[in-house]
């Protein structure tokens, strides 16, 4: 099942410079697993050492933050857009 995954500028070098890529999977976890297989450089940006979503990365399924859904187990339907958004922060 194909979905669109939006890659932020800071991660595009790890995804052959692409702004969006096709994602495959029924959940965000499956999509990310497929994604890091194809683009290993993305792994450290997306997941921590335990395989959880990195705390400085936000992921949206369409308009919804997956932290308020089922996290990485959030289901994703055909045609959905998964947006990866690194936290923009400072002090």
């Amino acid at each position, binding site marked *: 099942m194909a979905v669109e995954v*939006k890659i*932020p*500028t*800071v991660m595009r070098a790890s995804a052959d410079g692409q*702004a969006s890529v096709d994602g495959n999977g029924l959940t965000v976890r499956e999509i990310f697993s497929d994604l890091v297989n194809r683009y290993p450089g993305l792994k450290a940006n997306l997941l921590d050492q335990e395989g959880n979503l990195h705390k400085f990365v*936000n992921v*949206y399924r369409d*308009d919804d*933050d997956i932290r308020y859904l089922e996290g990485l187990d959030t289901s994703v339907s055909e045609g959905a857009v998964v*947006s990866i*958004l*690194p*936290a*923009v*922060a*400072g*002090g």
Partner: protein
Amino acid sequence: MSFAPLRLQSNQYQTIIDHCLDGFPCEACGLLVGSVDKHYEPTGEIDSVHPCRNADESTRTYTVDSRDLLQVTRQADENNLQIVSVWHSHTHTEAYPSETDVRQALDPSWIYVLVSLRNPQPEVRAYRIKTGQITEIDVIVSPE
């Protein structure tokens, strides 16, 4: 390496100042959308200014609300532009990146704009932050 200056129209400049003053005593933040060159470096020309919510609601830190970040990212994509800069206020300190700003600087191609509110007249300065190295760039404000 020399960096292109940040070029703001006076109304864009004022939008940034107003948002920082409105957010006081908390830090305020926002994003600038513009064009990049073939090396993905910002040209310095700003197409639009986007005041954002500070998810931290803090006097000492800021995090651009991810809902605002999503919206601005989408709008930039639709116009074939990019987010090229983030601005935030320092309410009681100078317009210079803090250690936290440097540590959390997300994208070396971005322009980091600091607005100091410690004096009655707000001060706006802009920087590039690459691998911990801070370089100030000029801010040029032109009439609309």
